[in-house]
């Protein structure tokens, strides 16, 4: 299949083409990777918006409310909703779609659920690949809902152009709000469930912590209050998301973030590939088996063994 064939199928009337290619990419099937290879030059047009925050802060409900806003402005939109896989059984319950079911007759909305499949940090291994696919299918807006994250799940910052961090009332004080981590990567910060007790405090504390502008860009992240279940404040949130998208285009920030995204995708993929090779076991590598044997006999320290193997990666790991 040529590039044009693929793009025509993704953008055309065959509604099964996109979901099926997504599966091939998610499963690491060579046909999926070959297709990605061809369509990648046609990507980079979409505005990728990350929706992240702790479990139960209302991310899915907020995404559903955003869909209403986006469709009211007649833009097509795709949602990638990621939930965690069990580290014990590999199983997963993907329950984000449940909040978005009333958009089922709307051809302008595509929703795909994804399991994290062993990746930490809020995304799945194939999240970036699926974003490229949706981008090539000409969805101008792609919402990526992460796994419910605590303070550390910041991978979304290198996939999305705009990161919306969703908090709920009662999750912490002013010290929580100045810690490193999730809040630090928020381009727009939302206190959802804004009708609940403590919402005013949460907004006040977060605004205080964002009074200092971002050190690199000089931009200050707006802090909004929403009630996703009723739609209150969601119009303002969409306006802020669009404003951030325009700001990216008007400054050099878009270019900077693209480079960060490319770097993150390559490095994450490289780590996954390394993990796969390591997991393939010592029986596949005589060198590794030999090193394990010598370490277990105390002829060699573990540190030296690791050094011996990683020397083979010198060309990548070498400093600039």
């Amino acid at each position, binding site marked *: 299949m040529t590039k044009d064939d693929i793009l025509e199928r993704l953008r055309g009337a065959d509604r099964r083409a996109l979901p*099926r290619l997504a599966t091939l990419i998610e499963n690491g099937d060579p046909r999926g990777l070959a297709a990605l290879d061809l369509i990648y030059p046609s990507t980079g047009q979409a505005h990728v918006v990350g929706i992240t925050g702790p479990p139960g802060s209302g991310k899915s409900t907020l995404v559903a409310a955003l869909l209403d806003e986006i469709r009211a402005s007649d833009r097509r939109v795709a949602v990638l909703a990621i939930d965690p896989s069990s580290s014990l059984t590999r199983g997963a319950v993907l329950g984000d779609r449940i909040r978005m079911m009333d958009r089922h007759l709307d051809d302008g909305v595509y929703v795909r659920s994804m399991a994290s*499949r062993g990746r930490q940090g809020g995304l799945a291994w194939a999240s970036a690949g699926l974003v490229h696919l949706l981008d090539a299918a000409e969805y101008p807006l792609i919402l990526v809902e992460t796994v419910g994250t605590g303070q550390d799940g910041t991978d979304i910052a290198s996939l999305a152009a705009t990161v919306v961090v969703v908090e709920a009332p009662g999750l912490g004080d002013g010290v929580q709000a100045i810690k490193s981590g999730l809040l630090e990567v928020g381009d727009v910060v939302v206190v959802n469930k804004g009708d609940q007790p403590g919402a005013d405090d949460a907004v006040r504390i977060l605004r205080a912590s964002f009074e200092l502008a971002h050190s690199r860009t000089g931009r200050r992240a707006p802090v909004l209050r929403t009630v996703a279940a009723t739609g209150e404040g969601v119009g303002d949130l969409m306006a802020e998301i669009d404003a951030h998208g325009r700001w990216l285009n008007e400054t050099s920030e878009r270019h900077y973030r693209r480079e960060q995204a490319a770097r993150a995708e390559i490095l994450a993929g490289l780590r996954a590939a390394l993990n796969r090779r390591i997991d393939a076991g010592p029986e596949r590598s005589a060198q590794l088996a030999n090193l394990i044997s010598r370490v277990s006999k105390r002829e060699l320290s573990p540190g030296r063994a690791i050094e011996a193997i990683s020397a083979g990666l010198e060309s990548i790991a070498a400093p600039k």
Partner: protein
Amino acid sequence: MNAPTSPGYNRPPIRILIAKPGLDGHDRGAKVLVRALRDAGFEVIYTGLFQTPEMIAVAALQEDVQVIGLSILSGAHMALFPRIIDEIKARGLDDILVVAGGTIPKADIPAIEALGVNQVFGPGTLLSTIVDYIRANAPEPSRSW
């Protein structure tokens, strides 16, 4: 870059949609089943209560699931199942395994299977029976596109 990293990995998890069609507010059974399927290593997309036939078919299409599981306790299966199967076929999803469970009388089972529902699990079915059946009969994930 995309494949999971767990040792012994060879086949991707089975993706299954569990849906509750129609006016049926009882989802305890469906939730127990969702949990059992998760523990069996499946990726389970649960769409919740009050699903129309169109909703179920669109979700199955967009999610590219290998299996659809319908849970029904309202007694309306003979009215709803033909419409669900029609919506599924209208979208060309003929290769998806369709199973059903709930309070479905034995007498109705031949008619339901004639519609194209591959297997019906009545009251008292062991969870392990359902898991084993799906594992043995789920089609491979997208062989082509």
